[in-house]
């Protein structure tokens, strides 16, 4: 696999260096830890700090989402690997404004341990109150009755957005945690992989697929999905994805959602809009109202091919936060 890189062992450092230098108005890297990136603005006293993070390779997630209306800090891990406690802890100290910090992260063994250890250290060493919201939107990763085992994938975008907007509005830590958990409860994602990605260090494909195959229920670190199937036209793929989501979170006529059609890295906008077109048709036929749509690369897996569809069911409170403005280096909403 061809990649535009220098030394495979330095890709994360060089990416962070370029990112920070490209967006000095938005972000700065902490001198205490080169994997801790925080917002360049001075956030208000008493604002709950929003900290996100995870492995590299999902850009714009997670470091692209630092800015007003989204996260105040991010801890950057190695490729597809949770960051260790150190950068999480340093970012926590930097963004705490006396009201505590909320951690929003995916439900991965590594993230659970590293963010968990960092939260303990923040409370012990710096007396900072930490709230944790663990995202579990991937319907393919465990059956409904074991929702607590599900992974966080593209739906982390909505949960972060809601947490960011609520903290901007001046909600307390307890309330930011409450609405972020509500957003997670109302969010479902299902995806397909059409082609694998390869890690810069190994250069080898993460899974093998024949030309006429697709992975249904992808793992967004290039791990295999739940089943292999014959490659279908976009409409049938969209039907399958939306079907699996609605089987898990029934939506009735008149209910309102926001939709995210997310590219995994090498999928063209053309394909994503073709998928969105069909998602809109299905929801329209069922009388489900689309309040706002997001189409593009929001959480990728290096150069993986394919896409995921995410639905978040909206009530008035979640609607307000999904609609709120945001201004990040890799995502802007007015």
């Amino acid at each position, binding site marked *: 696999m061809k990649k535009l890189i220098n030394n495979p*062992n330095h890709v994360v450092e060089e990416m962070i260096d370029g990112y920070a230098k490209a967006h000095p108005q938005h972000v700065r890297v902490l001198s205490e830890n080169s994997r801790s990136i925080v917002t360049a603005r001075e956030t208000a006293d008493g604002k709950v700090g929003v900290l996100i993070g995870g*492995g590299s390779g999902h850009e714009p997630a997670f470091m692209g989402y630092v800015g007003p209306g989204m996260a105040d800090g991010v801890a950057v*891990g*190695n*490729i*597809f*690997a*949770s*960051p*260790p*406690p*150190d950068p999480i802890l340093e970012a926590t100290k930097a963004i705490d404004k006396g009201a505590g910090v909320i951690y929003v992260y995916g439900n*991965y*063994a*590594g993230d659970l*341990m*590293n963010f968990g*250890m960092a939260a303990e250290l923040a409370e012990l060493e710096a007396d900072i109150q930490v709230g944790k919201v663990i995202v579990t939107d991937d319907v*393919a*990763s*465990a059956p409904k009755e074991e929702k607590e*085992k599900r*992974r966080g994938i593209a739906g982390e975008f909505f949960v972060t957005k809601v947490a960011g907007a609520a903290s901007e509005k001046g909600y307390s830590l307890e309330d930011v945690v409450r609405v972020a958990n509500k957003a997670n409860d109302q969010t479902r994602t299902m995806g397909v992989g059409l082609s694998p990605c390869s*890690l810069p*260090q*190994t250069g*080898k494909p*993460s*899974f093998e697929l024949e030309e006429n195959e697709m992975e249904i*229920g992808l*793992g967004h*670190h*290039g*791990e*295999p*999905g*739940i089943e292999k199937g014959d490659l279908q036209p976009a409409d049938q793929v969209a039907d399958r994805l939306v079907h699996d989501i609605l089987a898990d979170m029934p939506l009735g006529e008149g209910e309102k959602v926001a939709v995210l059609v997310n590219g995994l890295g090498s999928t063209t906008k053309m394909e994503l809009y073709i998928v969105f077109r069909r998602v809109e048709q299905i929801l329209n036929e069922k009388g489900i109202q689309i309040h706002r749509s997001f189409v593009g690369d929001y959480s990728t897996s290096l150069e993986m091919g394919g896409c995921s569809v995410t639905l978040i069911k909206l009530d008035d409170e979640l609607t307000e936060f999904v609609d709120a403005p945001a201004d990040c280096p890799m995502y802007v909403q007015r």
Partner: protein
Amino acid sequence: MSFTAKELKAFLQSVVDTVEENKDYLSELDRKLGDGDHGVTMSIGWQAVQEKLQGELHDEENCGKISITAGRTFLSAVGSTVGPLYATGFLRGGKEVQGKTELSGEDLYNFWNAFIEGIKERGQAEVGDKTMVDTLQPALGTLKLEYEKSGDFTGAFTKAVASAKEGMESTKDLLSKKGRSSRLGERSLGNQDPGATSSYLILSAFESVITSVQTV
């Protein structure tokens, strides 16, 4: 008895070398079950430990400090899932030998007990989940049994490594229940777990060092 700080550092260096030799093999195993980076992650972590061995730890004689520094260094370099797991092993093991410059058979026994119990506690996995615990738990079982019977640490540890190998190989026939690969179901069968494999490599590296020095 001559298991000193020097031998402990030789063990860590031997892990560095073993991980480098097996980097591609570990990643290959992981590609079948996960995202294919276990070898890469182990290498990043142990290369960082090697830097400490050549720098800060070069003249260090406190075995506790050496082990704890190795654990912290590994964790800070990798994060991931293996970071907190192996780091906890070295931190807990290091605590058992804190302040000591020379280790008796009993010290080493306590070290490995704490090492393995620490990893089990952090990861919350059981035997049969297809994780590093499938290597570590049988090793600990044999180590306890043999050491209590004979009081000979080296002999007991050698037998423990044989049990570790069986445990590692048993993961081929297990369904993944933890981590990313748990979603694979039947597709995880037939593949040896990369974490169980790296744990075996660490134990055998220790066996090589311990059998090359005189211990009682």
